[in-house]
């Protein structure tokens, strides 16, 4: 289990303890984190799980699938260098201290 901190759009922080092998999207949806929809269930089809990774460098995160970049191009909120799709960040102890910010909108 590893803690992930979500910073909601209104600035509230929520810490969720996530089991290894579970994605940040899955954890957020299960715990009802407002602003992460994850409608395709992690099938890399919807881009409604967009987050900004605040704490780790890109190199410390799981690598991006080309389809993730393609979907990110179409996200509703501003695309930033730290943008990721949360369903592609699968938790492991290597991600200790992960902080992600929820964008203002997903659709």
């Amino acid at each position, binding site marked *: 289990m590893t803690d992930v901190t979500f910073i909601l759009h209104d600035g509230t922080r929520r810490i969720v303890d996530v089991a290894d092998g579970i994605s940040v999207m899955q954890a957020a949806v299960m715990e009802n984190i407002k602003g992460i929809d994850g409608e395709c269930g992690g*099938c890399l089809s919807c881009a409604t799980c967009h987050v900004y990774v605040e704490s780790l460098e890109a190199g410390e995160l799981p690598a991006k699938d080309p389809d993730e970049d*393609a979907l990110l191009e179409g996200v509703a909120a501003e695309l930033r260098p730290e943008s990721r799709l949360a369903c592609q960040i699968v938790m492991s102890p290597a991600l200790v201290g992960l902080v992600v910010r929820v964008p203002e909108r997903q659709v």
Partner: protein
Amino acid sequence: MVDRLVVIGASHAGCRLAFAAREEGFEGEVVLIGAETAPPYQRPPLSKGYLKGSVPLAALRLKSDAAFAEARITLRLGTTVTAIDRAAKEVVLAGGERLAYSKLALTTGARVRRLSVPGADLDGVLHMRDLADADALAAAAKAGRRAVVVGGGFIGLEAAASLRGLGLDVAVIEAEPRLSARVFPPRLSEWLRDLHEAHGVTVRLGAQVVEIVGRDGRVAGVRLADGTKVSCDLVVVGIGVIPADDLARDAGLAVDRGVLVDASGLTADPDVAAAGDCARHPNPWAPRPGAPIVLESVQNAADQARVAAAALFGRPTVHDAVPWFWSDQYDAKIQMAGLPDPDDEILLRGDPASGRFSLLHLRDGRLAAVDSVGWPQDHMAARRLLATRPVVDRARVETHTGPLADLCSPG
């Protein structure tokens, strides 16, 4: 009088509706009733990653116990509603218990259509709707070598791809002259056939299964109308679903292959809503907007559930979100935005042989739907562009490889 929302059906639509009721500020009790015993889960991966074994059960859950508790939603799993008594405003549960409601939501989904041929209930004839089906299919796939998939729609083709991935020999039997004919233009049907054949699947089109042949009570093969027999150890039937509207019908609500609701998700009884696969609703994206439709997709279930929750609690809005859908087969990502009509004019963008192309559907000269293969950028762009019903620069469709938006203008 009780202040209680009862939601029947605890899947994509039901969960979303229950949580949305809280977002609407409803403070009363929320009871979410589901016939299945598993906690609410994502259905799409069942025929994809879950069947293949790449997605674990834990990753399918829709909401955690803590989230239900925090939102004060009482989950009653393994519980079937057998009747709705609208006069008394109560639902009747299997076993006879009665539960009063002030607001009621029907999110009962759909059940699979079964084959009505001799042998259809032999051991080894399987369907693909819920977790129990997926587990049964995964177990049968371990023991079996050869599978016949009846039906070349999404579910059948995804099952075929996943079973192929598990190393089985697979034959797909489709009654229509092409695959997924109900939703795809011929060009995409052909591409799908090539895809499956390239992966070693036998595709038989225009073929009618007339009998499932058994040996000792178990499937041994299927017989086709032309007399051919295809041997197999298991049969997956994917010939569509039937909206679960019987509770509503028996309660005197209007049904027509689905519970009839208005644009806000309400039935003629303002205290009763319906959403998801069970609801026939007016949809501005339908090719003939006057005729209500049923949409079987996660997007529709989620968006309609939100709208229905708002209407139940005094804030009626219109369910008009752009429909979208996806299907994963082998490594191919197929995504649809908008709703297709067989009469659409189809423009091809990109090269099907490259595995990256889109089909632009034009209706009355304007962009009405986009099917993309291996081109998620086009899909995402389409979901946004469609809302403006743009005109398309035909002259450049074939040659322009940049963003889809470049080809669209308000006209």
